[in-house]
């Protein structure tokens, strides 16, 4: 038999090649400096979230360990070395509260997306793979959710359930999953026509096996990218709800809620709204940069 096609070059071994692959992926990621910046911002926020009690100068001002502190004698102090971001109407250190707000925002982002993905992706998988009547029914239900403006729907859900942090997450997840159902559905439609899916049926694979072993791994890339882009938006929506008074309630150190409260004291006490607002801006920006970087990376890899 002819071996002319066989790779005869010295084989560097599996581990070596995996490392090369990894290097290539890292290289592609690095090609986009913005994605590195995004990654740094996100790492920064994660670090802050974990170590907030140690970094924050006045953890109790942010309600740490259920010991909310108020210092009316220090209210509305402008930014200084002692209070980097100034203090609010109850004399609480805004810097400490912004640091603790990171924990809330990241938690909201993660919980909302986990919930949205765990509803949306299965719906999209089943609808796309089965098609026909079942697929149609599932996607029409999805369309109903999509046809209502997300913020309005989230507002309605949040009001109906009594505004607090848990319900905010629930409300946002309820408006978010249809996007994942849509995305997954579309990807499944194209992947399921691939010959390797047919091949797996040809060797006797069941539908469940085909879905989880052939289809799901091949639709994960765009879902991952969308998740990293959506983190920022989910946090933004949570902040918007907080701003409208329908999200986390004061004195929770949630950024949107803080911006909303500070609005009453603009422009004289400008620092009250500005710093939480900057934090929102920065975290959304970070996730967007990261998502863009991931998208470029996957675009090249999957050809």
């Amino acid at each position: 038999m002819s071996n002319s096609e066989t790779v005869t070059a010295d084989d560097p071994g599996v581990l070596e090649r995996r490392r090369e692959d990894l290097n290539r992926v890292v290289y592609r990621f690095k090609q986009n400096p913005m994605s590195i910046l995004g990654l740094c911002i996100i790492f920064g926020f994660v670090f802050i979230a974990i170590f907030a009690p140690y970094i924050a100068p006045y953890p109790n001002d942010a309600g740490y360990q259920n010991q909310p502190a108020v210092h009316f004698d220090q209210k509305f102090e402008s930014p200084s070395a002692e209070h980097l971001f100034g203090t609010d109407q109850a004399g609480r250190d805004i810097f400490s509260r912004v640091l603790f707000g990171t924990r809330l925002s990241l938690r909201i982002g993660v919980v909302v997306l986990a919930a949205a993905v765990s509803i949306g992706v299965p719906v999209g998988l089943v609808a796309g793979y089965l098609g026909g009547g079942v697929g149609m029914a599932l996607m029409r239900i999805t369309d109903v959710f999509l046809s209502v403006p997300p913020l309005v729907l989230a507002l309605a859900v949040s009001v109906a359930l009594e505004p607090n942090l848990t319900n905010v997450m629930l409300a946002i997840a309820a408006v978010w999953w249809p996007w994942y159902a849509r995305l997954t559905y579309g990807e499944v439609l194209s992947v399921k026509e691939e010959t390797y899916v047919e091949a797996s049926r040809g060797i006797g694979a069941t539908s469940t096996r085909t879905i989880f072993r052939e289809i799901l791994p091949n639709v994960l890339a765009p879902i991952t990218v969308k998740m990293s882009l959506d983190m920022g938006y989910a946090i933004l929506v949570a902040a918007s709800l907080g701003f409208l008074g329908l999200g986390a309630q004061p004195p929770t150190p949630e950024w949107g809620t803080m911006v909303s409260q500070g609005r009453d004291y603009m422009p004289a006490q400008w620092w009250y709204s500005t710093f939480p607002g900057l934090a929102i801006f920065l975290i959304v920006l970070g996730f967007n940069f990261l998502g863009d970087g991931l998208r470029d990376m996957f675009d090249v890899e999957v050809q």
Partner: protein
Amino acid sequence: MSFDVETDEVEYEGSLVEVEDLEKYYYENDTLFDRVLGREPTAVRAVDGVSFEVQEGETLGLVGESGCGKSTTSETLLGLREATGGSVRFKGRDVFRMTGSERTEFRQDAQIVFQDPFSSLDPRMTVGEIVTEGLRIHGLAGGEERTERAKDLLERVGLSARHADRYPHEFSGGQRQRIGIARALALDPEFVVLDEPVSALDVSVQAQVLNLLEDLQEEFGLTYLFVAHDLSVVRHISDRVAVMYLGKVVETGPVDEIFENPQHPYTQALLDSVPRASVEEYGRRGGTLEGDVPSPRNPPPGCRFHTRCPHARDACTKELPPDYDTGERHEAACFRVDADHEYWESEPLPHASETGEGTSVGGGIADSSD
């Protein structure tokens, strides 16, 4: 089935694979919306009553132009697409009615190698996983044994055991096709459908893959259904040939008979279209057919080929020609084979280039271009 230990050697009559009146229609305009508007669904008759058989150990070549339903036939007969009519018997058992263990057994005994080596391998599985996926599904070998089997298979198809840990994108088209062949062999099948296995490959690589297929057939006693549009490839590898046109088989016969003594005008035209390198061929008019293949949405009445056939007469538009025996296991669906048919009395169609008398085999198709 039974608890007999020798279930592997099921007694059956006839050929290994018997395809009878196989039909695969696709329906267009068949959504709820169309029904509300009162639109009639349009049937696309991709495969429209195909019958043939494949005997144990032989290679049947299935040839025809692009879009004539070759690939649909092969995928439908394996049950990968749902047939809309007809039956397929594998070892005497109806493939479309199989359930449970029978179906599982059939999935092991009958395999397919696809045309496109780039889309037929899952990009997120290693080559070793791809090749042994069938063993995993059927629970035939586990752990170490499976790894060993993957290596054996890869070596058998001319790759290296080291390649098992790599991903498909690291291979060339020919190598990928070898991986596809290894996957088909993993379950130790009896019947393999080769759906244009070399048409996507470079010519130099084609020969290597064809030789590999022949070696494997000999070694494992495989039966092949070889689907192709490349006649020289078919001639090389087949024992018998079935020619398809617009969803129907128009001629079947032993490979030499088909190539030396074609009876159906379509087969003749097809053979004439093959470019040849020979001094005697100097001056030969390129034998090309006029016109396009009609749409399978609305196939012509009577003989499907009459719109392009140089011998077409009025009779051809009225009735579908049956399969006439024209020699040892050689059948052609053309009235011209039957000397007594009313065809000879009817009027030639306007586009037909000649009167029909004294046509030499394989000739006369071309000279209609003036």
